[in-house]
């Protein structure tokens, strides 16, 4: 009986949380296919009665979102690949090797993560101005990688720390070099960690706003958050349908990524540092 009550309580909590997580997504999706008059209707139209694709047409024809979408895809993908490549090695180094100043560098890396990102904007701006990286997508990749490094290193350290040292001792006895141990032993085992880190880094870069606002200028270098934000004007009715359509499109890559890698995410969350 007590078990049933517990289950009911858990189910009730989960239902509430699911509702709070899913409702904004539902509302964005339905708003994106409603005609304008249905969007601003009072009381709200909870279930769409009339459907339209005008909002999606506006996104692509009037706001050139396709190019912007690919800009974001390039920046987020490049950031993810580079970050994971660097931090899979970095995390391994911090986790497996004991060297002078190790703790200092580990804590320094983590502390960098605690500094508000806004503080870096002006130094980035000045540096990029000097080296000609302003208004370049490659510049955004650099800053996004820099911002993602501390968390990714920390995550990878957690994943590598979970691995029993006996595996590496066996590999040593089998004549494996340090690089071999990383490539042939650690890396295959840390696959869920790579997926989890990739998703977190990708989402971070995909949603990034402040850096791209300050470091890019021209229309053909805009990223999605900036472009969606630009749809809101002063002294003009907010194009809620167009914003919802753009938001829905912006959700697609992260949803696909999360759904296709769900198996690894579960493994990752139970294997690495993120389990808390």
């Amino acid at each position, binding site marked *: 009986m007590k078990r049933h009550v517990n289950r009911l309580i858990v189910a009730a909590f989960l239902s509430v949380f699911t509702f709070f997580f899913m409702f904004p997504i539902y509302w964005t999706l339905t708003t994106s296919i409603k005609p*304008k*008059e249905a969007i*601003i209707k009072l009381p709200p139209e909870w279930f769409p009665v009339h459907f339209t694709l005008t909002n999606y047409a506006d996104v692509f024809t009037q706001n050139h979102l396709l190019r912007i979408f690919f800009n974001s895809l390039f920046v987020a993908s490049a950031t993810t690949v580079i970050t994971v490549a660097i931090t899979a090695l970095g995390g391994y180094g911090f986790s497996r090797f004991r060297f002078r100043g190790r703790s200092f560098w580990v804590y320094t890396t983590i502390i960098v993560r605690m500094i508000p990102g*806004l*503080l870096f*904007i*002006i130094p980035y*701006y*000045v540096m990029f*101005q000097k080296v000609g990286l*302003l208004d370049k997508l490659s510049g955004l990749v650099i800053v996004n990688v820099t911002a993602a490094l501390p968390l990714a290193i920390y995550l990878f350290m957690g994943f590598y720390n979970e691995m029993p040292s006996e595996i590496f001792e066996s590999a040593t006895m089998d004549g494996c070099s340090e690089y071999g141990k990383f490539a042939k032993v650690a890396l295959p085992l840390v696959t869920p960690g790579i997926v989890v880190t990739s998703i977190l880094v990708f989402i971070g870069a995909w949603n990034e706003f*402040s850096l791209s*606002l*300050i470091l890019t*200028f*021209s*229309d053909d270098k805009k990223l999605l958050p*900036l472009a969606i*934000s*630009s*749809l*809101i*004007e*002063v*002294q*003009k*009715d*907010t194009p809620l349908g167009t914003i919802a359509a753009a938001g829905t499109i912006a959700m697609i890559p992260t949803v696909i990524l999360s759904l296709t890698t769900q198996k690894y995410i579960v493994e990752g969350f139970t294997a690495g540092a993120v389990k808390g």
Partner: protein
Amino acid sequence: MVNMMNRRGLMLLGSVIIAGSVMSGCASSKNEAGAGGKTNSSNEAASPAVKVEGPEVYGIKLTDMDAGGTLKGQYKGKKIVVATMAGDTEKALKDAAGYFQKASGATVEVQSFPAESYMEKIQLDLQTNKSFDAVVMPVALIHGFAEGGLVQDLKPYINNKDLVSPNLALDDFIPSLLDIYGNYKGKLVAFPYKPDSQIFFYRKDIFEDPKMKESFKAKTGKELTVPQTPEEMLAAAKFFTKSLNPDSPVTYGYSTMADNTASRWIWTNRLAAFGGKDIDKDFKPAFNNEAGLKALQFAVDLSKYAPKELLTLHWDEANTLFTNGEVAMMEQWPGLMQAAESDKSKVKGKVGYAVTPGGAPTMGGWSAAMSSATKNPELTYKFLEYVTSKDLEVLKIKNNMDPTRTSNYMRPELKKQFPMYPTLLDSLTKGKILADPDVPFVSPKLDDIMELNIQSVLRGELQPQKALDSMEKSFNEVIASTGIMKQ
């Protein structure tokens, strides 16, 4: 209007200010022949003008597409960058840039940034990167840039006979706009680009309804007319409030947008009418007096006839109440006209326009200025002159940028298409107070001070006189911190 933008952008402001103080500031380089020098146009005076076919807009065939023959493709190979807020301003500039490019041979890149953060972005660039040749922004910000030497005087270019368009006609700009938007400390730092004034929108159908007129007369002993004075406005607002008059065809006598970015305009719309001002010419607060008190008390009285949620209403919500037919009178920026006259509006064809009661509406407005650091001052000047010229002003109307030149308000085609224009012209001529106090560097901060106090008064938490005292004290402190206040 500055603080109508999302506060998220303000997070960046601190960074921008720090940057401004530590980095190179207000350089004013002139790298081209520039203002008084020999110009490209004079070099090629003998060249024929480039033929650019003008479009027909609102039944008007645009003809001055080469700035009176001064654009002859002579700027080929040159490029300028113009910065502004994303949206209508950007679209209007891009439209005009297409024709300008054909006529001048130059390339114009219009860069735009989101409404919530364009101010910080543009200021940062003007102070450091200096990649913008021209900026189109709200008036108060342009004046701040002028104070900091970030934008330059246009008069030397206007005085250059080889450069200036014979069709410039400075006196065609509405005088108050050229004066308030363009002039700053004896310099012409910008051309007016987009005029803005609070307009009094009212339900023509119910004000002209004989039954309503009769009922009003019976209740007040006076004729029901479109309010011209604050007292008439108050009487009409009371009469049309359904909770006080069940026969009223609308729910509320009055409404406006009055959230914590916009409530101050209920006060400023009457401040000048009662003889007050927000800031005097020496940057000292000029509202803590009888006029300020009367205007603030009037705002309190008027809000009794407004929706309960008045202090949360912003653009969309306030306009929806009006277009749904729930409000008899509303003070709003001209953009409400599009919503009120759209097919989805329940009040289409039923709306009248007038100058705000008291006859001294609050003015907003955007102007176009040239960066001090531009490497192409002559070309930039030509672009600014072009986009504010009489014919090109007509082109920008379709992007909701109303004209700033008197002659355009006189065009019969536009008068017919935009019945609000005579009222807008009248309002622009009578406006005395800017939507954002015209104090360089701290205008958004002063907006916040006003909002904080006026919201408190309208909520009933603060007495009007105490609010004025508090505002005056805060204004003095903030303005003193800039060091610009005259002793």
